[in-house]
């Protein structure tokens, strides 16, 4: 029996062949015979005319896809970075703004580094300086919250800087990419004036939440509404498809802050999660680090066996900040003996900061403030909404 098909690739020792019906099958490579080699088909470029009367937005892409093309033959998905491609895939965007696109990186978000955060901060700063009335940063969702926090600290912005991505891949008709992108564009042209994450508010395609960049966390591995504000309500919402933006009174408004870039970071910082029975030996690995954030238990604890090595770290110049793995609520190391011992060892209470936001903040504080006492004080100040003075009712 013989069948005609198009050879796609060889994977795990099998030749993947697309039959005329469109189905792929895997067959032993030895059973294939070359009939002809088809000429590669050039992909067509469609130019979309933009409306110059609309606000100017810059889309900075880091690797998250808001638009993609599928090669139906190979199934490969290519992310689209240029404005024409994005507007072809999501035509509604053209009704909202005029776009220019800056391809900064094409990485999976788990491969993000503090150095790329700095490049991103500079790119965003340049775009705002050049007149962008809002910024959209496309980003993989896994570490989007870290990046949003990093840009929050590094860029003082008078305009919205909106992070957006998709939880369900952009190559599926049901992807959340298009609605998230449309809502992000709406938020980026709104009265908002701070760094935010705009993603689905619920599993429905009806509302996106606007989350503060320093208080947002990915709370589900796969759902559309994985992103949640912790410790405070979202700072706004965008209705879909009406694109109506509402902001809470606390949301920083457009024009409140003056544009400035503070892009220094000290990457010699770490974040560790304490667990019962954790060996004190492990802390040796952090000797020489400039900063260490601990996600402790409950009110902000570690076992007593960890206190001596922590004190040693502090004595040798490491700034140690305590946060809680509870995610909700603030640490208080004055209630129990262990807590008081941690404070005596020189550990700083991280208030109600999220552990990830505290790590990024620590890098930024240590990059910008050489004085250790002042740096410790900054860690407890609210710089970009990462700490609240009052605990809302929570959960």
């Amino acid at each position, binding site marked *: *029996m013989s*069948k005609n098909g198009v050879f796609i690739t060889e994977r*795990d020792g*099998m030749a*993947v062949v697309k*039959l005329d*019906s*469109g*189905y*792929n*099958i*895997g*067959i*032993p490579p030895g059973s294939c015979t070359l009939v002809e080699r088809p000429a590669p*088909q050039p*992909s*067509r*470029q*469609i130019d979309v005319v933009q409306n110059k009367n609309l606000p100017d937005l810059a889309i900075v892409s880091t690797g998250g896809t808001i*638009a*993609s*093309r*599928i*090669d*139906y*033959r190979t*199934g490969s998905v*290519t992310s689209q970075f240029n404005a024409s*491609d994005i507007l*072809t*895939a999501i035509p509604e965007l053209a009704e909202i703004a005029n776009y220019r696109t800056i391809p900064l990186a094409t990485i999976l978000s788990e491969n993000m580094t503090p150095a790329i955060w700095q490049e991103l901060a500079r790119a965003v700063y340049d775009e705002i300086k050049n007149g962008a009335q809002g910024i959209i940063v496309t980003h993989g969702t896994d570490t989007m919250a870290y990046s949003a926090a990093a840009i929050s600290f590094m860029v003082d912005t008078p305009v919205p800087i909106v992070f957006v991505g998709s939880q*369900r891949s*952009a*190559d*599926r*008709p*049901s992807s959340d990419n*298009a*609605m998230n992108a449309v809502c992000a564009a709406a938020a980026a042209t709104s009265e908002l004036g701070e760094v935010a994450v705009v993603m689905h508010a*619920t*599993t*429905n*395609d*009806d509302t996106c939440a606007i989350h503060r960049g320093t208080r947002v966390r990915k709370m589900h*591995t*796969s*759902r*559309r509404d994985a992103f949640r504000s912790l410790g405070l309500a979202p700072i706004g919402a965008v209705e879909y*498809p009406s694109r109506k933006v509402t902001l809470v009174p606390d949301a920083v408004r457009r024009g409140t802050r003056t544009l400035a870039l503070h892009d220094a970071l000290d990457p010699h910082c770490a974040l560790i999660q304490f667990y019962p029975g954790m060996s004190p030996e492990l802390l040796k690995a952090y000797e020489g680090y400039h900063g260490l954030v601990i996600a402790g238990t409950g009110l902000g604890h570690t076992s007593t066996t960890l206190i001596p090595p922590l004190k040693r770290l502090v004595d040798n110049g490491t700034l140690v900040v305590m946060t809680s793995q509870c995610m909700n609520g603030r640490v208080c190391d004055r209630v129990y003996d262990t807590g008081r011992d941690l404070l005596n060892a020189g550990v700083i209470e991280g208030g109600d900061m999220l552990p990830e936001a505290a790590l990024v903040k620590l890098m930024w504080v240590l990059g910008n403030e050489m004085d250790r006492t002042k740096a410790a004080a900054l860690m407890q100040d609210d710089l970009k909404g990462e700490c609240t003075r009052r605990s809302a009712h929570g959960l």
Partner: protein
Amino acid sequence: MDYKALGLVAGIEIHQQLDTHEKLFCHCPTMLREIAEHDGEFSRYLRATVSEMGEIDRAAKEEMKSNRMFRYYSYDTTCLVENDEEPPAPVNDEALSVCLTIGKMFGMTPVPQVHTMRKLVIDGSNTSGFQRTALVAFNGALPNGGLIETICLEEEAAQRVKDEVFSLDRLGIPLIEITTSPCMHTPEEVRNTAEHIGMVLRSTGKVKRGLGTIRQDVNISIAAGARVEIKGVQDLDLIAEVVRREVQRQQSLLAIRDELVMRGAVVDAVAGVEVTALFKETTSAVLKKAKKIHAVVLKGFAGLVGREIQPERRLGSEMSDYAKKCGVGGIFHTDELPAYGVTAEEVAHLRSYMHATEPDCVILVAGASEKQATCAIGQVLTRAKLALSDKPVPEETRKMLESGSTAYMRPLPGAARMYPETDVLPVLIDEARWEAVAIPELITAKADRFVAAYGIERNYALQLAASDKLPLFEQAVAEGIKPKLAVFTILSTATELRRDGVDIAKIPDQAYLATWHAVDSGKAAREAIPEIFRSIAEGSTFAEALGKLAPAVSREELEKIVKTIIAGRADFVQQKGMAALGPLMGVVMAEVRGSVDGKVVSELLKKEIAAATSPKTP
């Protein structure tokens, strides 16, 4: 009709739900639910993905025109996979095994490595916007010498509740798709092939039963016509009729075209004319309600728009289906007017206003807006041009109507928009796995065996072989129950009770067996079985049912009763001899209130009558 001379060519695609424990790509049960039981709902939009050429699939674009919001009902038996909120689990291996079994039964070749694909479907019936499907085997043989081209393993779509609302209980149930080559040439052959494939599928014992669990799509064309795909034929008995009617439709369309050409008919209008004012005083409810009424003249079409092309369908119906795509309710044409509240005066007025002469047909559409009316007239013109063209039978996907006639759904799909499901790993079908696939005995072979072994009628034997009570039957026979008693109870008694409204699903297999043993040992009468079952279905235990309905009459008691009755009618017995058996049966059965098997009574009576009438020995 000589279908071979007409060049009838038909193929079928059979979709059968598999009866696996879990769904194809998640671990939810394959259980259908009542709509009222849904405990969650959510809403989504779907948009066609852009292809490598920067294009959107034509059919998908058509679906996207309205940018509809779909609403989905979820249940405590569905999960995040159905909600398109979680990546799929690996392919359900049980479902794959069933496909391999069926493939082997048809003598097919398995695919060395099975790849799951995504087939673009954005009508809302799949939350993801695609249907997952995998080619499992090809090249099977059919008894008519035809070919089974492929077997695919697919996920079932969500059930439409109404309009844009879907129920997720059905989404993801494994489905086997069997595609034959266009190898059939008569309506009966199509039916028989579908029946044969259905029988093979049921022989596995791993397919779902009942309405909606199997659907047939039929591809039909005649030599001068065109390929038409008819979707969703659920009833096997309608298949041949569907084929016959499609042949009739294609022939009629060809004949209409010939007549149009002969008459010199033309479709030269490019748009409709607004005639709303003409119907200001109309008594037609539809026209009165319309915001915009447009009309168009089809020159030379008079009498042909209203001509029947298959039962209850006219050329006008086809035009109406096309117009409905714009959202209008349908069309009016002068072949059927005056009617529907439109008066003869209005028709005459319309004809003169449109400058229509006698050979012309005027079409009316009533729209809720200018845009809708314009769109609908455009669609009517498109269809009219097709009727006049050298291809008067358009290639179409059609849906079956209740009677077996069909209505237009959409154009045939273009090149399949399929791309790999990157979230599902390929599955290797190595030789060892293929070798290990056991072929179950065909229902027909089983039936032949039952006929030979138990002397059951072939019709009954076929039903039994396909019945889900077959294991019960086999157990009963193994336990020494008479095969005919078991068959009669399973196929006849139970069916009659079900038709009578008794919930026979509540009768456990153990109760069947206990009842048969009771009959066998004379503790219950054969005649009492329906009453015992009815009582069990209403909640009694077997013992209670037996006690209530078959008060145990012991052998001893029975003998006493029989002797007493014979003694009381000694003259009658002496006079009639064995002929007294019939009348006495009635008396005894009345005495024991049907609780003893008639056969036992009759044997005993025979014995006692013989004893009573034989010469006494001193």
